[in-house]
């Protein structure tokens, strides 16, 4: 389908280009179950209209050399929305909203490696959809904060109760946020950066 290509190969709009001085990027990953507001948060803080990047996984158990294995392979495509914040003339922050299904995380080679940290978004009505995300981040040693997305129709729970329900250690900051709101989302990112700074002071070298 060549028309699709010729239409899409356009590149950024002029207002979406970075300055030539942009020298390096950092990334923050926003995780959580399906429908907790990851894309909303990316959209509310991003300076560009959020974009979608894709990765394809070919489920092929058979070796490439196996000529008998000509049955069509199953392909799974996983999409990830992301946005961008220019922090200064040289430094750019990218925000990735990962797919809810954590089993696809490995697809994004290096998504968590080199990330400053992560924001786990939760919806108090469906805490369980974000349990997995917390577990995976802990396993990988990725520092994170937990942001409680204020859905208007969701009941309000005391933080301590949510913390207990999520089985979160006291060392992990929890904050309220409204993913639709730009400054609230920005504050969530600031909370993550503060948390990262605090890790510096409390954990020196642990061999």
């Amino acid at each position, binding site marked *: *389908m060549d028309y*699709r*290509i010729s239409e*899409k*190969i*356009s*590149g*950024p709009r002029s207002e979406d*280009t*970075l300055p*030539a001085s*942009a*020298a*390096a*990027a*950092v*990334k923050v990953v926003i995780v959580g179950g399906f*429908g907790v507001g990851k*894309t*909303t948060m990316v959209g509310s*803080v991003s300076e560009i209209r959020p*974009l*979608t*990047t*894709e*990765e*394809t996984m*070919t489920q092929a158990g058979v070796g490439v050399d196996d000529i008998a294995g000509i049955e069509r*392979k199953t392909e799974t*495509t996983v*999409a990830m*929305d992301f946005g*961008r*914040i220019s*922090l*200064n003339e040289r*430094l*750019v*922050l*990218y925000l*990735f*909203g990962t*797919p809810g299904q954590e089993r696809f995380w490995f697809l*994004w*080679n*290096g*998504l968590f490696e*080199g990330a*400053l940290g992560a924001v786990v978004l939760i919806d108090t009505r469906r805490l369980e959809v974000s349990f997995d995300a917390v577990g995976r981040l802990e396993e990988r*040693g990725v*520092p994170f904060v937990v942001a409680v997305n204020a859905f208007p129709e969701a009941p309000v729970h005391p933080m301590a109760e949510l913390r207990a329900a999520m089985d979160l250690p006291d060392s992990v900051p929890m904050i309220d946020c409204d993913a639709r709101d730009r400054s609230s989302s*920005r504050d969530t*990112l*600031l909370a993550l*950066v*503060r948390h*990262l*700074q605090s890790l*510096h002071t409390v*954990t020196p070298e642990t061999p």
Partner: protein
Amino acid sequence: MSEPGKPWDEGGPERLYTVSRGRAPQEPRHRPIELVSLIVARAEPEPGLAPEAAAVLRMCQFPLSVAEISAYLVLPVSTVTVILAGLLREDRVEVRAPVPAAVLPDPELLQAVMHGLQNF
């Protein structure tokens, strides 16, 4: 919200194979190309260059991350990485590596992120 189950017409794996000219993504002669590596074109697209490669050169007049290139080309990151590796080998693009975040990011970097967000 991302649209769940949005159809993604790849044109089949053969097309990706063609675009990447059958090369595997890992060719570590240069620094690895990552999701947020910034790419800057160092050459004009020449006639005869694969359309996707030419498109990369055109859109990277100013720095652009691999993720953005993937989004604009509507191609998977791994395929874009292969195209970029080819362009890099021919010195047609420059790759600006992401800030390595080691185990804990550097305090100065965190300070810069903090300031950037506060002024945003």
